[in-house]
């Protein structure tokens, strides 16, 4: 029952929602409204589980003094301190909470992401080579798009009265490739959904599927 119950529920729920999608009747719409409300309500306990899970994981690390347990102390204390500050002094503009958010967290995240630019510059110089015809094509297109997507390149294109080559590359060859990928992903999602509904894919139950 512990295994078959959720599987039956998933199959019935899946079929009902597929049928509901194609029926534009008021009853069907009300039913969908109700389901959305239920889903929103049921998503809230997920936050509690999330907090429990992260606390449990890091507390265990600290207790057993596993490698890098210092980071766990930082993580847990950050959660507690930020929650405490938010509850005590509010989260309005100019509050301590927002100051920490704006001047510490935002700055750290922006710095981490900015580092990518340096790595990309170094990696492009070292590994972006025209070794094969395919790599050469990729290289040439990449250089043209890189040049044309910034004002200096645009100005050159306009002065030479060249057609908007960059928009053409993005609108046709790029779009064709993206659509192919999109169709593949879409079909894959449909197949996976069917496998879940039919009980073939059982990873979501928390086991190995056996």
């Amino acid at each position, binding site marked *: 029952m512990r295994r078959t119950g959720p599987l039956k529920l998933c199959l019935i729920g899946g079929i009902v929602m597929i049928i509901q999608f194609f029926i534009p009747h008021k009853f069907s719409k009300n039913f969908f409204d109700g389901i959305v409300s239920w889903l929103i309500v049921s998503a809230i306990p997920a936050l509690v589980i999330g907090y429990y899970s992260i606390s449990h994981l890091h507390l265990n690390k600290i207790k057993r003094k596993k490698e890098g347990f210092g980071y766990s102390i930082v993580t847990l204390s950050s959660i507690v301190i930020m929650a405490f500050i938010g509850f005590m002094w509010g989260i309005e503009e100019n509050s301590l909470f927002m100051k920490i958010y704006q001047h510490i967290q935002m700055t750290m995240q922006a710095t981490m992401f900015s580092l990518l630019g340096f790595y990309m510059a170094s990696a492009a110089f070292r590994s972006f080579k025209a070794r094969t015809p395919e790599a050469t094509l990729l290289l040439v297109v990449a250089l043209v798009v890189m*040049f044309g997507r910034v*004002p200096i390149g645009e100005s050159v294109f306009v002065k030479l009265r060249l057609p908007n080559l960059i928009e053409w590359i993005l609108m046709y060859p790029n*779009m064709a490739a993206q659509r192919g990928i999109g169709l593949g992903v879409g079909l894959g999602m449909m197949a996976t959904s069917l496998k879940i509904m039919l009980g073939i894919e059982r990873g979501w139950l928390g086991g190995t599927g056996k």
Partner: protein
Amino acid sequence: MNLLNKFMNMDRRWIYIITTICVIVPFIKPIGLPTYTTPPVKNLYDKVDNTPDGQAVLISLDFDASTLPELYPMAVTILKHCFEKNIKVIITSLYIQGVGIAQIALEDVKREFPDKKEGIDYTFLPFVIPQLSLVILGMGEDIHKTFPKDYYGTSIDSLPMMKEIRNFDQISVAISLAAGAVSRSWITYANQRYGASVAAGVTAVMAAENYPFLQTKQLIGMLGGLKGAAEYETLVEKKLNIKTRKAACIGMDAQSAVHIMMIVFIILGNIAYFVARRKK
């Protein structure tokens, strides 16, 4: 050969230093190169500009601080556009961290438009749950049920501008400023399920993925990376004559310098590679 080897095995710190210079110098001495408008940006501008009375523009800041330099100028410039044209705005975020950024953007723009009032000219909706598709579906059914209170704790029903706005039928365009694939969820649920007009503001690396949706009009417009933001800034400045600091346009000077630097490095790297291969 020795020089060639030295160049190919150049210490990466030299590249980092040159990159740093290319980023910093344009900020100190902006070049001010013109930005040309592309159709996806113009379409979004026109859609926002032609918002009819009784409808609002929804801006969802679905990103965190890591992509702030690219996406934040978009939020600011669209907000300025709406406030200048007296278009009502609903601002929200499906990311918990985006709420703080939305608050900062709102406060930033309000300094230039101090007469704009919460609940009359704009409504700030809070983060509700971490299931973004459910929030979009909920908004499609009834915004008042999904967000019973606004960010400041005021009942949505008591806000004058929200009295007539119930769902996507009263939203002229929903703009998702997103770092990840969140704009896809807006297309899937808001556009496909409820027929809402959806536009996206995405990072430059994500822009290419969205072109199929532009062609099918599932996205009515798109701002692609900092360039998209700069194009929108230029349109707002030209058409509405708003003279303020153009963060995205200044950023584009730095981006121009870095792109040119990378192009030069890639070309030199390839020349060195071919010369070395021939000599072998």
